[in-house]
């Protein structure tokens, strides 16, 4: 997941500040139920692998996801299975749209499902240092962001 943001449904309509007298964010939505219809949250997703039955592949699927396909958050078991190989890192660091923050954040996220949190991050860091051998500054920036 990358570049996530909440925008008005109608382009060109700027959200107006509300809730001066409310105590919390929930109260704002209770007072103005239409807000849930006027705002929507969008995010982009970078495909770094796919699965076919039980087999997980750490490279691009032959076809992109269909329009209207439902999107789910990976559960713990799926994340663990996926993170057994670090081959997806190549796709992740080479994709023009994913910045250093995305790389570091996604590795932190995957590490949280791993029992050996630090061990996972160290292995991932080593893989990164091979992939980013020619970009020491970027490597250093990512490594600093993924410290356990």
């Amino acid at each position, binding site marked *: 997941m990358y570049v996530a943001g909440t925008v008005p449904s109608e382009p060109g309509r700027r959200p107006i500040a509300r809730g001066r007298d409310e105590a919390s964010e929930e109260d704002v939505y209770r007072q103005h139920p239409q807000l849930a219809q006027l705002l929507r949250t969008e995010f982009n997703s970078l495909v770094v692998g796919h699965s076919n039955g039980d087999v997980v592949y750490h490279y691009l699927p032959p076809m992109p996801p269909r329009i209207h396909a439902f999107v789910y958050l990976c559960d713990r078991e799926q994340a663990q299975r996926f993170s057994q190989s670090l081959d997806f890192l190549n796709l992740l660091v080479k994709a023009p749209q994913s910045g250093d923050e995305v790389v570091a954040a996604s590795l932190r996220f995957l590490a949280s499902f791993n029992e050996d949190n630090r061990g996972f991050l160290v292995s991932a*860091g080593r893989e990164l240092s091979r992939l980013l051998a*020619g970009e020491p500054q970027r*490597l*250093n920036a990512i490594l600093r962001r993924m410290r356990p």
Partner: protein
Amino acid sequence: MGVVTSGSLSKGVEVKLDGRVSTEEMAVGRFVSIEGKKKRFFGLVTDVSLGAIDARMATNPPDMSDPFIAEVVLGSAAYGVLKVLPKLVWDVGTGQMQPAKTVPQPFQVVLEATQQDIDLIFGQEDEKRLVIGNPLDMEVKLCLNLEEFVSLSSGVFGRTGTGKTFFTHHLLNGLIQKSKAVNLVFDMHSEYGWSWRGQHGRQEYKALRQLFPSRVAVFALDEENARRRGLTPDFIVRIGYDQVEAPDIEILRDTLNMNELQVDAVHRVSHRLGKRWLSSFFEVGDRGEIAERSKEWGENEQNLGALYRRLDTLRRLPFLTPEVSEDAVDRIMHYLKSGVSVVLEFGRYRDYTSYILVANLLTRRIYDQYREQTEQARDDAGRPQPLVITLEEAHKFLSPELARQTIFGTIAREMRKYNVTLLVVDQRPSGIDPEVLSQLGTRIAFRLDNAEDIDAVLSGAEDRSELRTVLSRLETRQQALVFGHSVRMPVVVEVEAYGATDYYRRFGFLEPAEAKRQVDKDIEDLFK
């Protein structure tokens, strides 16, 4: 430890170290094995360096103060590199060990060698192998094949205080215990007979006679000195004038400060006067007849006068006497033939004149007898037991000028022909004739500081430049590089510690109380 990344047979292979292994734990001289598919390679670490996956890393070094970043970077982006010289190949299928004629495939795994590997290469202790220590940074025993060791001359080199005397003692103990050779030790500093004190004189160490009372005889040149130390030598060596020959004088050229003309005159005079030439010449000089005789003999009077004065200094050596009742060489041969090693202590006569004169004179005649015996022997059984002559300060005999004249040069060059070999002990190998050095079968080099000495020790050795790095990085004490004929590959040894009770016990030495108990038990068993 890591994987092979590149390299060649002649220069050695490069090994990228695993991130878990720090270069700080590495050392040149360490022993490694490389697992090939069908073969296992054994090699020696000859260099350690650092590598980085990209040169730009150096301009933007990562933050190594952070433990996480350090852990990630070490072994991946930046890593240690070992240079390993493959020396041997073990064929897993046939079980054969051969010199390495190729290199392992790329990315084969490199492991630290184990006791099994060491046993495979150097063998386990048995009746012909002696444990000499452990390989560098390994807790395993390393053996030297003594049969092969004595078959060629060998050398122990190292500057003072590195442990070469201890190691020479250990070798001699092994040779005597395992009966692989009889020894003749020219003991310039009186260390090999009974006991000696270490460098700081704190501890007294037991030497050959104490460990092997029935298999070592101590001869002394200086009776008084031996008695003062409370010792009774088996024989007091005296040398008769008639035993001194012209070549014995010739090698004293430097110590007696003789010039070329005088040396030539010695040969002519000894030829003219026959076997008792030295006594006769002294008589001529004592009677003041040099002038007359020089005319008669056609010699230059001044030259002959100078020669007389030079030779006269020899008369101050108390062990040199006009007549001797018993020939020292006969006694030495008698002992050597019955398998008893002989240590000749020089006592106070540590000057080079005495040492060179006596060692050369005795060895020349002993060697002649050995040669005769060997030539007469029809088969191996008739050949005399190998004789190892231990020679300290060997550069005095084996300098390029003298090596051709002294008997020691001959022995070193003739190799094993007559079953006599040298064990050269020296701290200045650069003073030894390169031809002699290159004939040494096994060389044991402790720390040497002088670059010339290091080059000299390695002269004629394979892989000189690689071994040079190893040799110049040895610790100052008790570490030695062993290479040559009797070891299948060069190896750095942390030598056996000398002098503990357990050490002496290995060579059969019992403390008096213990020895008495043993005797009592033997007597009891006898009458059971």
